[in-house]
């Protein structure tokens, strides 16, 4: 059984040497919002996590039955289906759904299967006036009503009123569309409330989808996801940013159905045993080559304030004067939230939103997606179409500088999978605090999959 979760006292818990995140917030040039002042450290036990969760088809099959078929999950953006008939195909672990906009403007979701012989109704995203099966022509309206059965004289046993497409629960939050394959699921409001309360200040519905990049990763979906759930790995995986990132003094907060890791930028890692100047941190943050000059900072301004000021001006054209309400931390830090089980929106203008899921029923590969959310002024720009990277294409080919960072994480993923397939050790060992979001994910997973 999983150990009980215990609250930790943020003022008296074991933590990294160096400045705490809350102390760093005290130096901010702007008023710090309450949401960043929240602290919710938890002790979730220190037992190893069984490697079977990553390596066995049996565990994957249990995840499908007990998690993916029952849990609320992000399917798309509302802006992906703006007009009546617009639809996307959402697949999870070998199960396919159609998410569409009806004539009345509501969003509905149906299993992607004809009720006649079961053929998939829609292979691609697109716009449709009806849902007509390409096999024998059974046809449903966008509202899911059966409207045509070719040669219907041969189907006296098909009653149209009982042959509507089954409706799958849907909900929206922050411009995202969620579905739940379980028609008897728990209310969405209970599921989203923890995250929603954190994002009151950062309205993602007012952002648009600037980029959407996806790639099949050669590792279990949790290996891919957990590569982005802690900052402890930065010292070995991303050494180039250690001079500008407070990796091990990140703040980790855990609530019931969401958790966050806040990693401060432009403060040196406590793992470095030498002093850094503010300019050194700017050089590292901006990836300025050795030998090239770094920008001079204005007198009396530290690197965080300088970079935050630059970010405010960079965002002002699209975000307007809202940028003046955001503190330095909101402009430069990494506010990485996770909503169980696989949705990762970042706070403020960080733009990043990840989603990780199994690649069909292959428990050794995953679909990793990065959606970039951006503010806009005037008319909403059209959302970016998804771009699938080929197996040998780096993330940097689509996401530039940010993609370079992902490529380092991606470099680890197949090696983690292979290592877990090879190890004689039955479990992975996690840090008590820094990796508590990973442990929280497994705690929740245990509750869903093993009934712990």
């Amino acid at each position, binding site marked *: 059984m999983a150990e009980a979760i215990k609250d930790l006292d943020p003022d008296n818990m074991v933590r990294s040497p160096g400045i705490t995140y809350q102390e760093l917030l005290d130096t901010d040039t702007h008023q710090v919002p309450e949401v960043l002042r929240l602290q919710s450290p938890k002790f979730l036990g220190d037992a190893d996590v069984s490697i079977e969760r990553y390596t066995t088809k049996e565990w994957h099959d249990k995840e499908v039955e007990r998690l993916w078929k029952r849990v609320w999950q992000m399917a798309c953006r509302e802006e992906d289906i703006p007009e009546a008939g617009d639809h996307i195909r959402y697949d999870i672990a070998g199960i396919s759904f159609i998410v569409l906009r009806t004539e009345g403007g509501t969003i509905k979701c149906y299993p992607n299967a004809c009720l006649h012989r079961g053929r998939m109704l829609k292979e691609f995203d697109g716009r449709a006036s009806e849902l007509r099966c390409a096999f024998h022509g059974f046809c449903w309206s966008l509202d899911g009503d059966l409207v045509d059965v070719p040669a219907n004289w041969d189907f006296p046993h098909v009653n149209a009123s009982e042959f509507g497409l089954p409706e799958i629960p849907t909900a929206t939050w922050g411009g995202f569309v969620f579905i739940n394959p379980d028609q008897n699921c728990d209310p969405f409001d209970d599921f989203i409330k923890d995250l929603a309360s954190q994002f009151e200040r950062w309205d993602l519905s007012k952002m648009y989808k*600037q*980029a959407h*990049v996806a790639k099949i990763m050669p590792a279990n979906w949790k290996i891919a996801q957990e590569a982005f759930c802690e900052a402890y790995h930065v010292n*070995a*995986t*991303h*050494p*180039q940013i*250690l*001079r500008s990132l407070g990796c091990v003094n990140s703040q980790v907060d855990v609530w019931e159905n969401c958790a966050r890791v806040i990693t401060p930028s432009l403060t040196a*890692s406590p793992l*470095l045993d030498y002093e850094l100047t503010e300019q050194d941190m700017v050089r590292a943050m*901006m*990836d300025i*080559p*050795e*030998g*090239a000059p770094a920008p001079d900072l204005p007198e009396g301004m530290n690197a965080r304030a300088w970079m935050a000021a630059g*970010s405010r001006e*960079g965002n002002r054209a699209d975000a307007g004067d809202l940028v003046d309400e955001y503190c330095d931390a909101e402009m430069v830090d990494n506010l990485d939230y996770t909503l169980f089980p696989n949705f990762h929106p970042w706070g403020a203008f960080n*733009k990043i939103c990840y989603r990780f899921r199994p690649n069909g029923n292959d428990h050794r590969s995953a679909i990793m997606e990065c959606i*970039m959310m951006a503010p806009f002024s005037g008319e909403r720009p059209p959302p*970016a179409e998804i*771009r699938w990277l080929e197996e040998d294409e*780096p993330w*940097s*080919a*689509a*996401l*530039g*500088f*940010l*993609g*370079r960072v992902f*490529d*380092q994480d991606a*470099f680890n993923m197949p090696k983690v999978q292979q290592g877990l397939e090879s190890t004689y050790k039955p479990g992975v060992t996690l840090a008590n605090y820094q990796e508590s979001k990973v442990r929280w994910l497994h705690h929740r997973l245990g509750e869903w999959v093993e009934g712990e």
Partner: protein
Amino acid sequence: MSEELKPAIKHPFTRALYELQSDGTVRVVDGDNEGLFKRDGRWISGELREADPQLCVWISNQPPPPEELESAWALSKEQ
């Protein structure tokens, strides 16, 4: 790529210099020793036989300029 702006970075722990070569390999200089490594950190030549693979991955991964990225996305403009 011009010689003056050759991508190069010092390792935060060892202070070794990692420098991208025009053929995509990575030259690592650690004190008096140096070596040449592939993009994934595999040794090619030189007396220095070990390098940090992740810093080799980083320095050798130079994306196209934002205006040439295939996605309609240019994060770099704000970096």
